[in-house]
């Protein structure tokens, strides 16, 4: 089990009802964390449209997560 802090943005924050939460979970990659939170908060957004950052660095869904990491979940972006 790893302790992972997850931060939610925009649509994900509204779905989760919190900005941030700290979870204990079995997760190897960023994708594992994302799937866990989707199940937890009933989201169905495909990962392909979303982005992820780990400790403020852009990452891939296959990037490994370590105990103590902060994972940022970004729904589809729309700047400009």
């Amino acid at each position: 089990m790893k302790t992972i802090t997850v931060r939610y943005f925009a649509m994900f924050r509204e779905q989760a009802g919190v900005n941030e939460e700290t979870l204990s979970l079995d997760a190897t990659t960023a994708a594992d964390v994302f799937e866990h939170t989707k199940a937890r908060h009933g989201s169905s957004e495909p990962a392909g449209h979303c982005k992820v950052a780990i400790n403020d660095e852009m990452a891939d869904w296959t990037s490994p997560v370590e105990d103590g990491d902060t994972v940022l979940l970004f729904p589809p972006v729309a700047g400009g």
Partner: protein
Amino acid sequence: MIRMTTDSIDPDALRRELFDPAAGGYCAFEGWVRNENEGHEVLRLEYEGYEPVAVAEGEKILVEAAGKFPYLRAHCVHRTGMLEIGDCAVWVGVASAHRDEAFKACRYIIDELKHRLPIWKKEHYTNGDSGWVNCERCAEHAHGG
């Protein structure tokens, strides 16, 4: 330089920062909040951004643009918070020796910025509804099947 702000954007002041005696061409792009999106009448737009990653990713985009279309100076500012119709949400300015690089770098920067920066917008409609706007490429993908 890229930065995020909750204040209103002052394009004329930003433009002056790009002056360079070797610059012959200057291209600027501004994204304005418009009153309509995909058939919905829009009242205002709410922008949310995550600054640490947006700024880091924005700097990468500026460096990429300089590699592809060598320019002299480029700046970019993105506003967040609640914006009204006509407000400037994003400003990109590029000064270069000749106009071709200025146009192309400016276009590259705004195109990349729109789909790579962690920035989201929520439209507030005249009927009281609101909704998060999906990214352009997602929409293209979805429309394409």
